Each structure stands twice: as C-alpha cells, then as structure tokens.
C-alpha cells in the first residue's frame, strides 16, 4: 500500500463526502431525505450540461448546486409544508432524479467535458503542504474540488458546533417543539438546511460528471447516494467524522483492485460488502457506548405539527 492508493481513496471519497455533508445538514434539521441519489444525479447532469454550454467551471458548479437545491426544495415542500411521509418523499425524489438525469442526459451522451473546465480541475499542488512526505501526496496534490471539500467540512463543523445558528439548528432536529417555544422559526430552518443539503449533494454529483469521469454517461452516480446515507450513520452525524468516513469508504471502494494483485484470495464480493459491514459495526459500537452524540437527532423523521404539542 503506497501513497498513491491513499491519494486515490481521497479522490474516490470526495463525492461521498459532499453527499454525506449534505445529508448530515438535512438530518440535523430533523428531516430524513433519502433522495440523495436523485439529487446527486440532478447535480451531475445539470452541472455537466451548463459546463458544456458555457465552458465555465464556476457556472457549471452553480448549475449543479441549483439543481441539487431544486430537488431538495421539492422534498422540503412535501415534508415541511405538507408534512408528507419523509421516507416515501425521499424515495420518490430518488426516482425522479434518476429519470430527470436520464431524460436531460439523453442528448449529452458521448459528450466530453470542455478542455478549459478540465484544466480548471487539474491537480494543484499546495505549496509547502504538498511537500510533506507521504501526507502531502495523499491530501495536498488534488484538484480544487477536493480542497473545497476539506473547507466545507471545517465550515460545517464550525457552523454546527460554534455558532448560535448551528445550535438552533440542532435544537430543531432534537426537539422541534422546544425549539419552537424558544422562538426559532422551525419551517424556515428546515427549508434552508434541506435546500443547503441538496446543494451539497448536487455538488457531489457534479464531481463525478465533471471531474472524476469527466464525460457524460447515464447513471454516473451508480449507488453512491445510498452509501452516503449509510455514511451519515457511520459518522454519527458529525462532519469531522464524516470526512474520515468518506475517505475510508472511498478507500474500501477501490481497495479490491489493489489487493487482487497481491495474491491474497479475497472474493471481490466480500470487499464490496465492506462499507455496509463497517456501517453496521459502527452502529453496534455507537449503541453500545450509549453516548448522546452518537445518537441520531431525536426528532429525525418526525413531521412537526405545532398543534400536537
């Protein structure tokens, strides 16, 4: 196992990281959005489409973010305003997103990302940091999107744990009635953070279509949205653990290809199971320790009716 493997794990984990952060922020607001896969696909196709039309990487990212946000706002409307069942709404969003991306992408098949967008996402070596032996190659010789992921983790962690607004958000997810009593606008908080979560998911999808692949093929996400949902549990709703988990899951996704050469006879099927096994183990450990911060937000999945208090 050399540094190139770990560097590849970071790249493979980046789309997972964005989607996981998006889902964390959504679940912290008390809403379980299973539409991650759908929002990622919407972000992937719109990001690609805008990039192809405008030749601008920044606009492409904006397009992806808006597409993910739009998907999430459908979910928000259904679950916050109409108080529909969150699981069903999320699944519907996944199906919708898959259809939407196939429909939109129909004409994009075979297209390749324009050269100047490819150049924009070329690996950039961060001065000094990239010279650190081993770690430098793993973390600081990537494209800007990966660094943006690092920054997002820190920003989200700071927001959740060190700001008043973050505290309010956690209160909404833990006990909406109590938060409402203390004067927090529940609906607004839920809307904003669900949409924000969708934006991050859309960006995760765009990483796949614009940087990782970078060409249009149908269903580029291929189930990563579901891994992200598992990752949220694995990371126990903590963005700092999420970055560790995302790179770990990214590594598990690709480790099989590297082991096969080493003459260790492990079935690829077993390796494909690893992320899910890890999630189950994390769940068991989390419940065993019975520590508060390992628990899901208490009001997760429960629609909030003010009159029901």
């Amino acid at each position, binding site marked *: 196992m050399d540094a190139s493997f770990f560097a590849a794990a970071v790249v493979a984990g980046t789309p997972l990281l964005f989607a996981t952060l998006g889902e964390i922020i959504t679940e912290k607001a008390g809403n379980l959005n299973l539409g991650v896969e759908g929002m990622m696909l919407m972000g992937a196709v719109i990001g690609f489409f805008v990039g192809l039309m405008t030749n601008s990487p920044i606009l492409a990212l904006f397009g992806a973010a808006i597409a993910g946000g739009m998907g999430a706002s459908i979910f928000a409307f259904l679950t916050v305003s109409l108080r529909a069942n969150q699981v069903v709404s999320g699944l519907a969003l996944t199906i919708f997103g898959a259809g939407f991306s196939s429909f939109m992408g129909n004409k994009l098949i075979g297209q390749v990302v324009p050269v100047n967008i490819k150049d924009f996402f070329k690996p950039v070596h961060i001065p000094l940091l990239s010279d650190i032996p081993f770690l430098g190659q793993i973390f600081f010789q990537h494209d800007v999107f990966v660094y943006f992921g690092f920054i997002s983790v820190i920003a989200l962690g700071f927001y959740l744990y060190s700001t008043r607004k973050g505290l309010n958000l956690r209160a909404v997810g833990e006990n909406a009635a109590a938060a409402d009593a203390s004067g927090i606008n529940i609906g607004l908080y839920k809307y904003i953070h669900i949409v924000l979560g969708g934006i991050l998911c859309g960006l995760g999808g765009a990483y796949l279509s614009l940087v990782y692949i970078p060409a249009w093929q149908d269903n580029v996400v291929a189930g990563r949205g579901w891994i992200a949902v598992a990752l949220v549990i694995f990371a126990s709703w903590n963005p700092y653990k999420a970055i560790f988990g995302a790179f770990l899951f990214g590594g598990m996704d690709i480790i099989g*290809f590297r082991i096969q050469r080493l003459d260790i006879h492990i079935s690829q099927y077993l390796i494909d199971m690893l992320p899910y096994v890890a999630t189950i183990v994390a769940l068991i450990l989390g419940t065993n320790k019975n520590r508060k911060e390992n628990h899901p937000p208490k009001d997760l999945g429960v629609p909030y009716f003010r009159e029901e208090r």
Partner: protein
Amino acid sequence: MKKLLRISIILLLVSALILTGCGGAPDTSDDVADVPSVKVGFIYIGPIGDLGYTYAHDQGRLYLEEELGVETIYQENVEESQQAVETAVRNMVDQGATVIFGTSFGYMEPMAQLSSEFPEVSFMHCSGYMMTDNMGNYFGAMEEARYLSGIVAGMKTETNEIGYVAAFPIPEVIRGINAFALGAQSVNPDAVVNVTWTNTWYDPAKEKEAAKALLDQGADVIAQHQDTTGPQIAAAEKGATAIGYNSDTSEMAPDSFMTAPIWNWGPYYVDQVQKVIDGTWEPESYYGGMADAEIVALAPLTALAPEGAQEVVDEAKDLIIDGSLNVFTGPIYDQDGEIKVEEGQVLTLDELLSMEWFVQGVLGNIE
C-alpha cells in the same frame, strides 16, 4: 387561497414526475409508406446511454428501423429477474410486439417460460443456450475480434504489461481475456495480461479506478470488458493507451483510444425480422464469427495504434475469415504451465462456452 396554491403545486409536481417517466417513449416511424405489420420489442440490461453494450444493441435496433421500416419498442434497465423480465415481455406483447429480443444472459429462463405462453411471438435471446419452439438464441464470436485487439495491444506495450479491467469471472469474459492474451502473445511473447475484476458491468467511476490501479502497477495499455469508457479515460490521464469494447469510442477518449472489438447487431436483426415478415422464421442457435456475418468487428485503428499494426491485424483477420486461423488452437497452456489444448487441437464451442481457466501469461484469479 393557500389551499389552491398547494393543490396547484402538487398537480405540477405530479405532472413533472409523470412526464419524466415518459422520457424513454419509443420512436415510431409512421411516415414509411409500406409499413410491415410487425412490431419488434427489445429488452435491455442497461441504459442506452452507456455507450457500451446496450448502446450497441440499440444501434442495431435503429438500423433495423431504418432498413425495414418496422416499428420498434424497447425497455431499458431491465433486471435479470423473473419478475422484471416477465413484466417487460407482457408489456411488449400487450403493445402488439410479435418479435422480442432479450439482450442479456439472465433473461434466458424467464423468456423460455414465457415463450410457451405466447406461441405466436418470436423470441430471440442473446448470449444464452436455451431453445424452445419459438425461441432461438444468438451471439457473436467476440473472441475473434478480441484476438485482433490483443495484437494491437501486444505491439504497443513497452512495459510488456497490459492491464485488463474485467466485469465478472464468467466464461464469456474469461474467453475474451484468453483470446486477447493469445493475440498479444502472438506478436509479443513476453506480454502479460494483468486482470482486475470489478464485479459490475456498469459503473464509470469504479471502472476508471480499477484501470488506475492497473496503471499504477506498471501497465501501459488498458483493455476492458466493461460497458463504459471509464478505463479509457483513466489511461488518457496517465498518458497510456487503451483498447475499448462494444462500440467505437474514439471521440469520447481521443487521447487513449486505439481500437476496440465491437458489436454490430444491425444486419442480424434485419435478417431475423425479415424472416419473420416473410413467415420463414425458425428458431436457431446462432454463434456468428467474422467469417459469416458482421456481428463482431474491430473498430478502425486510430493514429495512436502502433506502426505496422494495421498490416498484422489485416493478415490475421484474413486468416480467421478463410478459416485457417482458429484463435484457440493448441498448444495452449494454462496459468500453471499445464497443457490444456494439445498441438493441432482446437477447442469446441461447448468448451469455449464453459471456459473457466486462464491461459499462460494472464495474471489474476478466477474465483
């Protein structure tokens, strides 16, 4: 007022969902003057947009529409399960389909069962072996084109290591890898083929990652038995070259694509459907090689292919077509150096269809 707004938004969302659902609505060509009264259904394992296996079948469908002017319908992403296949077939028969092509191995048994229920429908199943009174099967001798692509890779490689991103350890894939390796060794005896399994037919990112692992291990040419261009893109990023699969993807991966063994289903579909129209159709078991049909071919070599490869490929191709070159002619040794095919012997079709061993010079395990 608020209620009205709510209702109208719900209606909007619902209609958006329904409209997206109709995205894959089939094309119809009503404007053809003399439309034969045959409707042809195609059941696909993946999305048409894979630019790979399903795309190749769909090109065949479009060719069929163009040549015969028949109406076609299709369904993408049909799982290899009893229920999914049954739903798809019943759907198509309800819509009036009288010819149904099922394009994936796992459709075989459900299709065979359904064929007795719909005796008036002609079923054709790709890549299987079962036959009924109204179901035939068809496939192409892809190993011939694989062998030719192996020649290109064997001449190109400088590290003498060729990476091969492969989907599942099943006879079809193994056969392709062996033919490819034999082709490479025919021009470069030192060439080894390093195989990595992905356990997926379709995951662009994962396939790319598998190719990257092979490139990191020292391969400088990447071949694939996968349905996306992921491996070719990985090769381009590392300055290596690639052999594609399924269809000519030189425009999608211009910096690495040398050639590809490709499927060309159109002529066979036209032939079969024409027979149905004429009323002369009989179920058959068809395994077409380069000699008697154009089902398998090698995509035109690009400028990245090694110098002189065209001549060597053409020579081998002529020998295959006139029957004097069989890809699996002895002596062939397996990975452990034991002789599997004696000098002068060739493998039978049954042995090919159940192949579960690698030839010498292939690195990898079959589990």
